[in-house]
């Protein structure tokens, strides 16, 4: 359901506009014309079966260069970001919580995160934080996802359990305070307790200036992070959009039910 915005004068009310986005990897077209508009403060969810292009969309938004964008554009806060490096997008306020967070042996989490935060702060014209100020700053953020401070002393994601990795992604999001957060299957593989912690973390960060794109395979997550809109991505296209009740319908009837009536109209 569209919500009423208090910030209608905000020039970034169109947080993200994806227009006719086509992307391929090695001549294999995966995204075949995605259209999606996300306004400031909205939470959108993308659901879809395996191989429909959900993760590709997330990676393309973040700037992964293994995918070639062949058509279309992505406007983030009104700026075309297709020519931007991933770090430039991050500095502009884009954040991707990875489906499979990468282990980086030898790079301490605290160091990594401070380098990241300072890069973003520098871009925003804020003062960089030294080690002591940084620790003070992250203390609060750790409580968002109930993170153990010991994880800060370990190498990035190395030896983290599945749940720790996903929580760490949300923790990083809390630290970097993005305006557009993409969560790529952050719920997959989590037990219900961990799922609630992650969802609570996300919900605590919802505000009128921040938007979320929640990519998930399972309807379960949407009981905890309630989206404003749900989109169904099949074979590289959004074939149906609706409110949160669409997720329930999918749960009940499956994707084949959705796909069939749309096939004719999208051809």
């Amino acid at each position: 359901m569209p919500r009423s915005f208090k910030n209608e004068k905000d020039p970034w009310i169109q947080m993200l506009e994806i227009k006719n986005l086509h992307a391929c990897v090695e001549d294999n077209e995966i995204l075949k014309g995605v259209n999606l508009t996300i306004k400031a403060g909205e939470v959108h969810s993308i659901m879809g079966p395996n191989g429909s292009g959900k993760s590709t969309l997330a990676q393309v938004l973040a700037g992964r260069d293994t995918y070639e964008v062949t058509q279309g554009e992505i406007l983030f806060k009104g700026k075309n970001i297709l020519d931007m490096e991933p770090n430039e997008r991050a500095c502009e306020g884009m954040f991707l919580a990875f489906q499979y967070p990468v282990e980086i042996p030898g790079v301490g989490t605290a160091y990594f995160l401070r380098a990241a935060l300072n890069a973003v702060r520098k871009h925003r014209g804020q003062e960089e934080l030294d080690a002591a100020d940084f620790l003070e700053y992250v203390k609060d953020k750790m409580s968002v996802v109930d993170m153990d401070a010991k994880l800060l002393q370990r190498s990035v994601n190395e030896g983290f359990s599945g749940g720790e990795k996903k929580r760490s992604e949300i923790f990083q999001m809390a630290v970097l305070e993005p305006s557009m957060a993409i969560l790529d299957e952050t719920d997959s593989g989590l037990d219900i307790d961990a799922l609630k912690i992650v969802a609570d973390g996300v919900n605590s960060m919802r505000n009128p200036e921040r938007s979320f794109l929640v990519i998930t395979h399972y309807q379960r997550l949407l009981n905890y992070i309630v989206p404003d809109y749900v989109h169904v991505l099949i074979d590289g296209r959004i074939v149906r959009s609706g409110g949160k009740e669409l997720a329930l319908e999918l749960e009940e009837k499956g994707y084949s039910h959705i796909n069939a009536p749309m096939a004719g109209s999208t051809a």
Partner: protein
Amino acid sequence: MIELMQEQDTYSAVFARMETETLDGGPEALLSLRKDAMQHFEELGFPTTKDEQWLYTNVSAIAKTTFCPATRPDVAVDAATLERESFAGCGFHRLVFVNGFFASELSDTTELDDKVTVISLTDALKQQPDTVMAHLAQYADYKTHAFAALNTAFMEDGAFIHVPKGVVVDKPIQLLFITVPNNETSNEPIVVHPRVLIITGESSQVTVLESYVGLGEQVYFTNAVTEIALGENAVIDHYKVQRESTKAYHIATMQLNQQRASNGASHVTSLGGDIVRNNINVVLDGEGCNCNLSGLYIPRGKQHVDNHLLVDHAKAHCDSREFFKGILDDDAHAVFTGKIIVRKDAQKTDGKQTNRNLLLSDSARVDTNPQLEIFANDVKCTHGATIGQLDDDALFYLKTRGIETEAARSLLIYAFASEILDEIKIEAVREQVNNILLDRLPQGDRFRGFKGLQ
């Protein structure tokens, strides 16, 4: 072949000339040793890439160059250089050698325990010839290794370290080998044959650092041999930081013989040199020994670095570990050979070899060759080697957090190296290598002062 004969002849002629002049000092037995070594060198000749031990390292450039023996240089080493290279303020005991010659005025062993001997090899041959001759050339095999033979024939000077039974040496002993042009007007390539002999008694403990430094960018040849006789239950931590001129040739043999329950460690950092070969040979000649060999090499340009390890498990219940990492840029070439031999009686051997390489350019090359030769039946040996580029997934991950490309690359390179830097237990030395690494990284300054990036 004819060419090779000529190359050896050069050394033979020089040997014949020097035999009656400079080389006949010291005990009679030494001159016989030199002659024997020279004879073996003449028979062996310089190795070629047809030799299995030298498959990937071509030393013809060394064989073809006419090097003149170094003479005592008239170029002084200035105070600032000495202060920098000798870790002033850390209180290391040190012997300094310039072009292979002992420089007593630059050395400092005043704070050393009276029971410990740290003197030049020349002095040792005068003061305790019997002890020296009982050990000299008893470990490093000059009969099958041409470069060891060459060193044994020509060794001018070097270090003699003796740590008696039960003595623990408090601070590291640094052996600083500085090479400068032969004199101010000449750039003639010189050859230096440094020789180090370390003898340690039962339950003693010592840390030795060999630093090789080239001042200037001249061509020269360092052909070093270090022999260590490690006593029962004794501990040695041996470090080498090699920062020769990038045009220099550095061939070194480190021979470590360990007695029962001893604990030997060697760490080699290779930064300089045009052609570099580190032969590291260990014989675990008593039960219950522990041996830890590690190293880092960071060649770039056209540098060639070859680490050639041989660990001979002669007795049972010994553990050995080889852990080497390389970061290669430009057209650099690295070779790693790690061989573990487990003799028939060496049951319960635990041997582990690891060699990891990071290639920063498409034209860099690595040949890695872990080998196991096992004759016992109850042993545990593992080996692993990797050659890879920076992980794209990790780079992307860092960039999506706002870290720019160059910084992300540097961070990953530094993280790769930090694991091996941690093997250096002398803080000042670790800091030195750390700083050299950071100097080479784009935006390396960002990481200065961070320990292990934690």
